[in-house]
C-alpha cells in the first residue's frame, strides 16, 4: 500500500483534553505506511458569518486548515461530546470549511473517535458528526467505532498514557480498517 498521510483534528482546545491524548497516541498505533499528524488548530477562527466571508474573505487560519485537509488522504476526528452534540468550536470550523470552493471534505475519507468521562463515550457527537459529514460528501468509515467511555480511568492524566489494552487494540483495528477504507474509496487510477 502506498504511504498515506492522514490528519487528525481534536474537537477540544483544552490542554489536558483526553481526546488530545487519544490524538497524540495515534501515530504509535497506526499500521505501517500510514502517517498521522495533527491538523492546524481552529482555535483562532472567528465565529462563522457570511458577511466576513463576503467582505474580507476567508480568514487565514481557515484556509490553512482547509489546505491541510485537502492535502491529506484521510481525516480522523478525536472529539469530546458537548451537550449531547458537536462542540461548537469544532462545528464552527466545519461550517467555515464547508463554504470554500473545492470543499475540502468532499470525497474525503473520515474516521471518528471520541472519549468521554461518561459511560456513553461520545456516541451522540459521532452521530451528529456523521450527518454533517454526509452533507459534505465525505466518506465516513463505518466500523469499528471508537467510543472511549469512562476515559478518566483509562488514561494516566499526568502522562497521557493509555492504560487500557482493550481500547488500544480497538484503536489499532480502526486505524487498520481506515487504511483499507482509504485505499478502497480512492479514485481509480
Amino acid at each position, binding site marked *: 500500500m502506498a504511504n498515506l498521510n492522514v490528519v487528525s483534528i481534536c474537537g477540544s*482546545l483544552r490542554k489536558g483534553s483526553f481526546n488530545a491524548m487519544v490524538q497524540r497516541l495515534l501515530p504509535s498505533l497506526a499500521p505501517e505506511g500510514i502517517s498521522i499528524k495533527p491538523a492546524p488548530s481552529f*482555535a483562532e477562527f472567528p*465565529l462563522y458569518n457570511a458577511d466576513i466571508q463576503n467582505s474580507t474573505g476567508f480568514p487565514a487560519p481557515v484556509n490553512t486548515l482547509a489546505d491541510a485537509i485537502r492535502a491529506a488522504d484521510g481525516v480522523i476526528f478525536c472529539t469530546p461530546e458537548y451537550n449531547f452534540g458537536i462542540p*461548537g468550536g*469544532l462545528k464552527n470550523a466545519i461550517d467555515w470549511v464547508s463554504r470554500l470552493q473545492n470543499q475540502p471534505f468532499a470525497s474525503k475519507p473520515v474516521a471518528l473517535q471520541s472519549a468521554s468521562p461518561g459511560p456513553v463515550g461520545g456516541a451522540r457527537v459521532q452521530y451528529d458528526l456523521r450527518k454533517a459529514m454526509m*452533507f459534505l460528501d465525505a466518506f465516513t468509515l463505518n466500523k469499528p467505532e471508537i467510543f472511549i467511555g469512562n476515559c478518566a480511568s483509562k488514561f494516566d492524566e499526568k502522562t497521557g498514557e493509555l492504560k487500557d489494552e482493550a481500547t488500544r487494540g480497538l484503536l489499532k483495528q480502526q486505524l487498520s480498517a481506515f487504511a483499507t477504507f482509504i485505499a478502497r474509496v480512492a479514485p481509480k487510477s
Partner: protein
Amino acid sequence: MTDQQLDVLVICGSLRKGSYNAALARTLPALAPAGMKLRPAQSFEHFPIYNFDIQNSTGFPAEVNAWADAIRSADALIIVSPEYNWSIPGGLKNAIDWLSRMKEQPFKDKPVALQSAAGGILGGSRMQYHLRQSLTSVDAILFGRPEVIVTFAAQKFDEKTLELKDKTAIDMIKLQLAAFEQFIRRVSAKE
C-alpha cells in the same frame, strides 16, 4: 404568572446582516399575543471558542456572562436559527456550550421554542432536532408543537425589505406564539 406579561428573549443563530432568520426574528414581536413581550438577545458574535482552560484561568468572558444574565432574567426563549451542514451553526452551539458550564445554568427549566428558516424543502428541521437534543442536555423545557419551519425562504421574504410575506408562515407563527404563551404559563414555577 397567570396574567402578567411574559418577557421572552429571542436568540438568532445567524450573524449575517441579511439573514432570513434574523428577519424572521424581527417579525415576531408584531405577531405575538398581548401577554408576551419579545426582545432580541445580544449577539454571541464575540464569544471566544469554548476552551475550559480559559474558563479555568480568566473565568467566563464578560459577554458570555451578559448573555447568560439576559437568559436567566427572561421568562422564556425563542431560538430562531438557520441550519448549517445539517446541524446547529457552530457559533450558536458554542454559545450554548459556554453557558452549559455555568453555575446556576441559564437554560435550566427555561421554556424554549424553536424556529428556523432555510432555502430548501426541509426548512432547517434537521438543525431543530439537533438543538432539541442539546437543549435536553441543559435541562430546558422544550415546547413541542406547532413547529415553525419556514421552507424555501427566498420566496417567502421580500428580497429588498426582508419582510415576511407568506401568509401560511405568518399564521403558523401566530399559532406557535399563542400556544407558547400558554405553555410558558403552564410550566412556570408555581408560586
